[in-house]
């Protein structure tokens, strides 16, 4: 085996972090670097997990240990595939692993999908999480919105739309977006789910959570059960929702349509409704001014790294010394912890490969990368400055205020703050919110 192999992991979300963890346990002396195109680590934990699910986001404390004590290097602000070529990375590292996830909303593949007023749940969640490459505010959705999909992401969208600004206490939500939305919130939400209530992929606890938001009226339709399991957690969650009558007229109504397949998005220039097929085969059009699709995530054919490669659950191997893990390997299935098992399998493949390549030439590793790349790198210390600035800027009842502008993150990361001096970027940031 290589005495001290140099390993590059592209992407610092859950897939990459679990892999670095597993590799570090087996190879205490390997040089491990995690690259991210953003100045911040943790990927989906920071920008995909809903901003009001802080308990789920707290897993970043576990991942931060990689950089704090496990001698894994964070190299942020490096986009592999554009600023730094994959070849340059492979030339300098014994193993390169793509852990870049899947950022693109999966297509529904029904007529009308390209109408104006159709949005993806990924887009939506990134806006609510203040992703620097996403729109800073939500589009104007209108009074009625249809949400297509029966998973947890779909319920995230429902929940974020039915909350008032006061329901976001303790979160790090994008407040300007929430405030703008609160001026003309959605009044009617139709959630369209292909499967029956007890076969739907969402977690029952996510459904139950909706019932704790005041001022909402719930109804469900077509929830034929697939099996005999009528006492399921989903059933009791649904009953809980139906019995949670708001005091006075509801702010918003949510109807959940089970066993309903979307056949078409109706409209001329923009969305006017969604056509669904009911279990009895009949077609029915639900009125909607906009549509949010939440049917999973997909490979982006324009992605210079992943392209149209598709999912493969058998192996992480792409080419000699080149691997992938997480959603980039398996497709968009499973929760964050599932990436831990995935990482263990890919790490085993990598260890086997390294054990068999004892005689290969030494590689320069991270320090062998072009100066033009290294100059712009944000290290973990830099990220900690961004982290501190964001926490310091948190308005009352919020855990942090995220930087909306990536060049701001970069500027703050590069400034050496000694605890006394506030950086110019930080002052601007605090000023903007006051």
């Amino acid at each position, binding site marked *: 085996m290589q005495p001290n192999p140099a390993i590059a992991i592209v992407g610092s979300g859950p897939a990459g972090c*679990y892999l670095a*963890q597993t590799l570090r346990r087996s190879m205490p002396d390997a040089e491990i670097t995690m690259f991210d195109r953003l100045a911040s680590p943790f990927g989906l934990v920071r920008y995909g997990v809903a901003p009001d*699910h*802080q*308990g*789920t986001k*707290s*897993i970043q*404390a*576990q991942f931060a*240990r990689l950089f704090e004590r496990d001698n894994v290097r964070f190299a942020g602000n490096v986009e592999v595939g554009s600023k730094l070529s994959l070849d340059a990375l492979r030339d300098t590292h014994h193993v390169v692993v793509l852990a870049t996830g899947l950022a693109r909303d999966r297509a529904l593949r029904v007529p009308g999908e390209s109408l104006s007023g159709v949005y993806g749940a990924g887009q939506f969640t990134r806006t609510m999480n203040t992703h620097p490459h996403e729109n800073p505010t939500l589009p104007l959705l209108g009074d009625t919105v249809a949400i297509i999909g029966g998973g947890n992401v779909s319920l995230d969208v429902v929940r974020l739309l039915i909350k008032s600004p006061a329901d976001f206490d*303790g979160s790090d939500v994008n407040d300007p977006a929430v405030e703008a939305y609160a001026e003309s919130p959605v009044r009617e939400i139709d959630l369209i789910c292909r499967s029956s209530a007890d076969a739907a992929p969402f*977690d*029952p*606890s996510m459904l*139950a*959570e909706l019932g704790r938001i005041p001022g909402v009226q719930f109804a469900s339709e077509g929830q034929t059960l697939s099996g005999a399991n009528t006492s399921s*957690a989903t059933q009791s969650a649904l009953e809980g929702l139906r019995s949670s009558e708001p005091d006075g007229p509801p702010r918003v109504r949510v109807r959940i349509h089970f066993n309903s397949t979307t056949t078409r998005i109706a409209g001329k220039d923009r969305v006017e409704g969604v056509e669904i097929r009911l279990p009895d085969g009949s077609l029915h059009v639900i009125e909607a001014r906009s549509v949010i699709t939440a049917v999973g995530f997909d490979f982006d054919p324009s992605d210079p790294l992943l392209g149209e490669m598709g999912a493969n659950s058998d192996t992480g191997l792409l080419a000699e010394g080149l691997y992938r893990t997480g959603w980039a390997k398996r497709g968009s299935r499973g929760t*964050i*912890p599932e990436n*831990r098992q995935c990482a263990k399998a890919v790490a085993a493949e990598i260890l086997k490969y390294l054990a068999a390549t004892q005689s290969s030439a030494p590689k320069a590793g991270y320090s062998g990368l072009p100066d033009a790349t290294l100059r712009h790198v944000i290290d973990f210390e830099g990220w900690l400055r961004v982290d501190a600035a964001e926490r310091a800027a948190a308005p009352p009842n919020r*855990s942090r205020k995220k930087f909306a502008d990536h060049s701001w993150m970069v500027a703050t990361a590069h400034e050496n703050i000694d605890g006394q001096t506030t950086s110019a970027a930080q002052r601007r940031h605090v000023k903007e919110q006051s």
Partner: protein
Amino acid sequence: MKISILFGTESGNSEMAAEDLAASLADTYETEIRDLAEVSPEDLREDALYVFVCSTYGEGELPNSALPFYTALSQTRPDLTGVHYAIFGLGDSFYTETFGHGSLKLDAQLKDLGAHRAGDFGRHDASTWEPVGEVAVAWFEDVLSSLQVNSNAA
């Protein structure tokens, strides 16, 4: 007294807490740390203190790595009289209905089989963002002092 820390985890957080706890004890006690996936109820002895560090997964279930141990307890129902344990549960109070249910189940089963619990049931709530290792270490100090109080009184 030997301290054996047994973790059951899905996301890795319980393992991290177990490692922190082990590190805090290693200078004073003979300490071992094991994945519950590799422990069988027959391994439990009377001359050690077992510290379970375990999360809750899904709808209040035990994490996958703790399931074989729990299932073996339920099926073989060994007599655990004389076995001493402490238990620390990780959860998220956001999920009010199922908060900490996985480790509560394990606690109930151990008690039911005659094992003696030392100290209070420990808890960590992910929604607080308190460092889980620090919470576990502080909790275990209380467990140890309750043991000393008991042995002084005896």
